[in-house]
């Protein structure tokens, strides 16, 4: 083997090992949290209310809170995001305005989540007077995931071959009809992956809800849009750093972390399945 070949082998093995190392780190994180959290998870944990200074009981209010925030923010981001994606990929003339819209969407995606928190607090909680509430939190989170929905919608629409649109036009359909009856149905599964991924994002975000909705301890289910709620990620933060008895609430924290991990796992698997089916159909 020549010197050049040997060097290449060494470098490629280093690259492979580094990749393996990162996969190892992921396995370590997941394995650790699953092993530690599995003991804490039970039916009572998932359906009970926290008690004993959050060292016993369950996390039902946090689960319910997160679910309501997911529903609320999707209700905000999904229609706006999908419409926006349709506009930029189907209608937009290739001019400065559209370029500006694109850049702005990218910028919005780059803004840190804590800044969304500040903004949400200032606009929705204080100026519009919603107070700390599901509605303020949902609007804040909705804005946060908007770029994600827009981007996946654009990608899904761009993946639909041009020939289908032309065929529809050739049959005398208008643009709206073509989009509604041909393009959207074909792109729908991939748009759904965007939706699912934003569910994952929303259920894990903490910083934007700190000052817009999240409650430290509120052992009841939300009753209206103007209620404050507990939420899983904030609950984990509280349990990990500022509970009344941090050591005693560790099992609760491991359980909550595992629930969050499971949500992410399920969401990734779901999105992967949909995407695989979609690519199969497109070919």
């Amino acid at each position: 083997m020549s010197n050049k070949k040997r060097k290449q082998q060494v470098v490629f093995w280093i690259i492979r090992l580094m990749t393996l190392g990162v996969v190892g780190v992921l396995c370590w994180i997941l394995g650790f949290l699953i092993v530690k959290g599995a003991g804490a998870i039970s039916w009572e944990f998932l359906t009970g209310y926290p008690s004993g200074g959050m060292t016993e009981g369950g996390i039902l209010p946090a689960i319910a809170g997160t679910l309501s925030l997911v529903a609320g923010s999707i209700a905000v981001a999904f229609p706006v995001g999908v419409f926006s994606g349709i506009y930029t990929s189907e209608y937009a003339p290739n001019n400065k305005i559209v370029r500006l819209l694109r850049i702005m969407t990218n910028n919005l995606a780059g803004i840190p989540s804590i800044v969304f928190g500040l903004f949400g607090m200032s606009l929705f909680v204080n100026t519009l007077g919603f107070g700390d509430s599901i509605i303020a939190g949902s609007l804040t989170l909705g804005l946060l995931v908007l770029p994600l929905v827009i981007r996946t919608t654009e990608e899904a629409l761009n993946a639909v071959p041009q020939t289908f649109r032309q065929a529809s036009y050739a049959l005398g359909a208008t643009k709206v009809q073509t989009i509604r009856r041909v393009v959207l149905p074909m792109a729908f599964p991939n748009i759904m992956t965007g939706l699912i991924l934003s569910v994952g994002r929303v259920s894990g975000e903490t910083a934007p809800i700190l000052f817009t909705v999240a409650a430290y301890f509120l052992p009841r289910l939300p009753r209206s849009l103007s209620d404050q709620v507990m939420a899983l990620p904030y609950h984990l933060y509280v349990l990990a750093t500022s509970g009344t008895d941090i050591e005693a609430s560790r099992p609760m924290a491991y359980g909550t972390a595992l629930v969050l991990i499971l949500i992410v796992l399920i969401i990734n698997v779901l999105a992967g399945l949909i995407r695989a089916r979609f690519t199969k159909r497109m070919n």
Partner: protein
Amino acid sequence: MKKIVELCVRNVLFVSAAVTTLAIVLIVIFLFRQGVGLFARPAVEEGFSLVVSAGNPVKKLTPQQVKLIFDGDVDNWSFLGGSHEPIEIYRWNEEIPVMNERSIAFIPTQYVSSLPGVRTVDMGRISPGDYFGGREWFPTSQPVPLFGVLPLLAGTLWVSLAAILFALPFGLAIAIYMAELAPKRIHGILKPVIELLAGIPSVVYGFFGLVVLVPLIQKSMNLPVGETAFAGAVVLAIMALPTIVTVAADALRTVPKAAREASLALGASQMQTIFRVTIPYCASGILAAVVLGIGRAVGETMAVLMVTGNAAIIPDSLFKPVRTIPATIAAELGEAPAGGAHYQALFMLGIILFFITLLISISVEIMSSRKRRQEI
């Protein structure tokens, strides 16, 4: 009729598309509306005054000097350009103090007129210079809070840059592996793994860092506390990794086949081709990956808040606690009275953060447009 529907739909869609732009404009407006009021505020807590005896030659004091006086670190007027006399401090405790030449008192402004022979010390307003150039962040200290963002800014950059330094070699290695080396099957496994890494909530990373990494670092490095810039950097490196990998792998894939073939046809090995042709070819894309990774790290809140120890000191080592801008906002906004100086100072931090990330977005935009031009 059809025409009208078409037109309506088009307009509805356009309005939706404009929402992101509107959101950014609103974010700017609201951050500024809440933040810039800071610089119109007196440096002393509202409703209070600092008074000295009318004969005291010291006319002006900086916020830092006041803090030193009230902490007892400066105890003689001679340090401040006055006569060689010890300083006597009066804090407000619902009693009007008895003043002499050596006294300095912190009292509600309404009582100033009832004290004979005293003069209010000119503290001026909170200046942008003190804010952006200040080296101390003591937002709740009395009588004069100190809002110097340098330690927070330094902490943020320190942790983020260290994180990128850790993440970059691994990110590049994985990107190269995925784009150039991996067999199809392994590529199919790696991609969801990276997506999963990106999907794990930051608070979970923070929790893992807190219960696993922090004790590990403390023990193995023999440190007084494990909550350090190093712990933050490691956690952030893991979190920034998916961004770097995805963007860099995409960039590598845009390199035309012709460039690779030309190199191989000249007898270059695959490795030589990767390092001498493929990577230089998409250098701007890889730079964009790095910059986006930094952006991710700079804005990250919860994980950093949980593992870095949050000491507002300008860092001189990776193995000491630091405090970042996002962590400061998250930790303090809950306790800062709405509309007060502290509250406004935190919104100003938000503005700083916003402009850092805006700068990052714009530079990425410029890099990718340069790449497109090169391809033509």
